[in-house]
């Protein structure tokens, strides 16, 4: 009772603690620079409006003899006539305004001289390209005055959002995006559920083949199905255009079909996992109670897999609503949010509005992400160590039914890819159907030629190597170090963030942050570095979770033992942590590689002529009407990813074989 606690102990940090903290700081700093700061830059852009504040400047004009008249404020000058000479003073960050219009009798040859100054702090004007500010007069002849432009002042507020929501064309995209995402989600999840169910709960044949075919869409850019759909159903030349009954594939129909294609494997994996962890004993119990197959389905299967189904739904929703490539290719005049961002930024150079659309897109993306995270956690809780794996029994009718169903789905998926391959190989659809490789001669097309392919390959390799190192080290620091709790929690939060950030949003955030001349990191803009950084960041979360899961499976006391034996942490890291985690490390690197090959959304804002990418080239060639070469380039990505996957599975098998002795025991 009344015991008094002595003074608090302050830990003495050992060599390892310092090393680990510096590591975590470096990787934390990476996430701050590559994620937090760009997003902040975008956020502040969305709330910034730019306008010319004429009252900040004053001018004095001389007569021909060099005698200066009174000091005049520019705003006063502007308001002398009604309506004012410059009526609309709103502009964007790049706005520039010449002033000669204010002087009706201005001529660059007149002997009149001008004195000009900025009276308020922060007001900037340019003479030619030279930056000026401040209340000191500068004197200019009329030829030079012609080259004076003032820069906009900025203001914080919601007016960008007001503009956005009062522009019907833009608001329409919100509805379009939501409708497309919801319809696709319903279709994909239903198709994927029965496909996964057939794999997990039936004895149908060729499961391995079906599983492989179902995964194929992951290996191609999301816009590739768009190209195949154009070949199949385009109103004038489509191979099967009659099947469209006069509807145009360009628009919502095309986006939905293509979206189902590219989201299918994601939904299938999640639902498969959910089905495979259901406890077989529940089925036995249900059977022993003489419940019908139908009743068992609704009382055991669906409740067991429900979190997986919900999770798959939100993942699909998120993928569709944030996807840019597919609606760009096959959207026609049907506008969606992700394409609006592109149009605002690249088409109209209206960066502020691009930021506003990004914020609007962020809302459903963040919501879907948040709900999905909660679902995933609950799903994990359902899995107990004592669950028994379900082994389906043969049932010819059911098995053949599922075989037919899976074949249909597989034909759809493989068909899309086959059409692309066919398109890439024929000389000129529909006039000359002879086969040739001329569409692979990318040097004759826009889009960067073969260099864009090698760039993509380089990007994928760099992303895989650098990304895996950064991600694994980061996960290790979060999972296996002690102390520094707040730093670790912050790091974990930052690592989860990228999954919620659509690629387009990340891309535009990078423009704002890295293209700012005041940013010391400005030099990476337009280089391969920024492409690698953005891609690693974009795909950080899934990689991080893979690494964390692998690390969690390792005994938490390895570190304690190693410390007690006075061995530095990096010895344990190299000799135990890395070798034991090698399968997970390989999984992370193939994930990063494949995504770096296929991604369009962030990099479409960030590539330069020297760093054109294959996936972007597909987009650009398609835009330019070179659809066959676009398909050919898409197929190049497919071959590369398929090759990488094969290499990955060979490596994984080799590693497992070598480590068989210690992984499984005698």
């Amino acid at each position, binding site marked *: 009772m009344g015991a008094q606690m002595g003074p608090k102990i302050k830990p003495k940090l*050992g060599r390892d603690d310092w090393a680990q903290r510096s590591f975590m700081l470096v990787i934390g700093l990476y996430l701050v620079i590559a994620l937090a700061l760009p997003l902040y830059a975008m956020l502040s852009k969305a709330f910034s409006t730019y306008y010319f504040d004429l009252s900040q400047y004053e001018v004095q004009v001389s007569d021909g003899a060099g005698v200066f008249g009174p000091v005049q404020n520019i705003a006063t000058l502007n308001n002398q006539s009604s309506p004012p000479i410059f009526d609309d003073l709103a502009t964007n960050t790049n706005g520039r305004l010449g002033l000669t219009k204010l002087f009706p009798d201005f001529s660059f040859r007149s002997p009149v001289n001008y004195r000009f100054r900025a009276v308020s702090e922060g007001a900037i004007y340019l003479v030619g390209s030279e930056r000026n500010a401040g209340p000191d007069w500068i004197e200019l002849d009329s030829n030079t005055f012609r080259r004076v432009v003032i820069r906009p002042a900025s203001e914080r507020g919601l007016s960008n959002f007001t503009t956005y929501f009062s522009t019907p064309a833009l608001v329409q995209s919100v509805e379009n995006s939501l409708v497309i995402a919801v319809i696709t989600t319903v279709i994909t999840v239903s198709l994927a559920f029965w496909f996964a169910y057939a794999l997990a709960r039936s004895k149908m044949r060729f499961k391995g083949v079906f599983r492989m075919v179902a995964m194929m869409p992951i290996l191609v850019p999301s816009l590739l199905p768009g190209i195949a759909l154009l070949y199949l159903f385009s109103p004038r030349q489509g191979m099967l255009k009659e099947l469209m009954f006069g509807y145009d594939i360009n628009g919502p129909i095309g986006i939905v079909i293509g979206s189902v294609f590219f989201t299918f494997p994601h939904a299938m994996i999640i639902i498969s996992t959910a089905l495979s962890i259901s406890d077989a004993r529940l089925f036995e119990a249900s059977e022993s109670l003489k419940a019908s197959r139908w009743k068992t389905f609704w009382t055991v299967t669906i409740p067991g897999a429900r979190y997986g189904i919900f999770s798959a739904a939100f993942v699909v929703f998120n993928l569709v609503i944030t996807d840019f490539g597919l609606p760009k290719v096959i959207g026609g005049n049907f506008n969606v949010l992700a394409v609006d961002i592109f149009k605002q930024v690249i088409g109209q150079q209206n960066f502020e509005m691009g930021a506003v659309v990004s914020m609007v897109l962020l809302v459903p993306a963040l919501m879907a992400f948040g709900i999905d995270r909660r679902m995933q956690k609950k799903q994990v809780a359902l899995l107990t160590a004592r669950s028994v794996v379900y082994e389906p029994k043969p049932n010819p009718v059911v098995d053949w039914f599922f075989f037919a169903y899976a074949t249909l789905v597989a034909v759809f998926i493989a068909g899309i890819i086959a059409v692309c391959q066919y398109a890439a190989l024929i000389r000129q659809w529909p006039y000359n159907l002879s086969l040739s490789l001329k569409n692979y001669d990318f040097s004759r097309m826009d889009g960067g030629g073969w260099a864009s392919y090698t760039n993509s390959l380089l990007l994928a390799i760099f992303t895989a190597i650098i990304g895996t190192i950064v991600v694994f080290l980061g996960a290790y620091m979060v999972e296996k170090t002690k102390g520094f709790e707040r730093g670790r929690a912050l790091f974990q939060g930052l690592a989860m963030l990228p999954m919620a950030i659509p690629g387009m949003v990340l891309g535009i955030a990078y423009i704002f942050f890295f293209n700012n001349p005041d940013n010391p990191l400005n030099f990476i803009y337009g280089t391969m570095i920024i492409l690698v950084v953005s891609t690693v960041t974009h795909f950080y979360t899934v990689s991080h979770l893979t690494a964390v899961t692998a690390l969690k499976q390792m*005994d938490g006391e390895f570190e304690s033992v190693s410390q007690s034996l006075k061995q530095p942490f990096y010895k344990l890291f190299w000799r135990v942590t890395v070798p034991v985690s090698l399968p997970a490390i390989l999984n992370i690197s193939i994930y990063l590689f494949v995504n770096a090959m296929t991604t369009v959304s962030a990099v479409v804002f960030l590539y330069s002529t020297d760093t054109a990418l294959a996936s972007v080239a597909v987009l650009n060639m398609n835009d330019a009407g070179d659809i066959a070469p676009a398909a050919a380039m898409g197929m190049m990505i497919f071959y590369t990813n398929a090759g990488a996957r094969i290499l990955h599975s060979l490596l994984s098998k080799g590693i497992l074989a070598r480590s068989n002795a*210690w992984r499984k025991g005698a």
Partner: protein
Amino acid sequence: MLDKTPDVYLRIEGLWKNFGVFTALREISLEVLEGEFLCFLGPSGCGKTTLLRAIAGLDLQTAGRIEQAGKDVSNLPPAERDFGIVFQSYALFPNLTIEKNIAYGLENAKRPRAEVKARVAELLELVGLPDQGKKYPAQLSGGQQQRIALARAIATSPGLLLLDEPLSALDAKVRVFLRHEVKELQRKLGITTVMVTHDQEEALSMADRIVVMNHGTIEQVGTPLEIYRDPVNLFVADFVGEMNQIPATAEAGGVVIKNVHLSCNNNGLSGSVIATIRPEDILPVEENGKNVLRVTIFEMEFLGSFFRTRLTSPELGEAMLMADFSINAMRRIGLKEGGKLLVQLPAERIKIFAEAG
């Protein structure tokens, strides 16, 4: 040398550990003697593992001082302390062979390879697994793995050996066998050892001294016999071994339970108390006398080497006595359920405690 080797090897003073608002350790002070085998015993959540981890420096205490071999180690990281540790999970590195696991702490630039090899062979011999060096941990049984973990922990000849529930993951038979092995090894090496366990049998059979802990405080420190024979409070009495606990009223020279007057040392308590006696201390007797009761066997349970019985008596009222009788005794008296007999509750075996809060 001026300093003699201290008798006290590890000194803990005023140790506190808070997790947010929860106090896991409350003002722990304790001395561990050189070469002794000490057990922290208590229910889960009592703070015993927290205390062990504080001694190791794996989870630093909030406040308080720890002195090891005369040196203040209170705030040092684990690597700057001197101990070997064995965990319940063994924590053997799965991808390294047994030899490599044991050699893990021995390898450094200064030590020649041959010396490491010789030491590993010596340690394998010591734990009785001389031929297993080339195998991987997953190829050994749990008991073997734990012996390897032990060999790894003592490889660098640390001054202190910490054992965190080392035997809890093993089957009953292996556990009993390893208790003996570990104790033998500790005696042979003379290494000061602190073990955490929730298994009282393990503590009683292995420890030189036991520290009984509850709710982050120390309830009692003593030899196994002291803890068993003379528990200082009801918690210790209840936690270590089986104990009858009967509400009673203190009176001069003893206590009274309904109509039964028992003479015993009532520690000067008065009013409502709890009278306790161990089941094996209740003796069958032939004739009436002091502290002798006439009881009926309500039920009996055969537990291998003895019978555990529940005894009732109208004089005791509701209270039931649990008593253990050897098979021989049962045969001699020839009793079965429903049978009657006389039992004595020896005065010196009855312990009286104040009622628990």
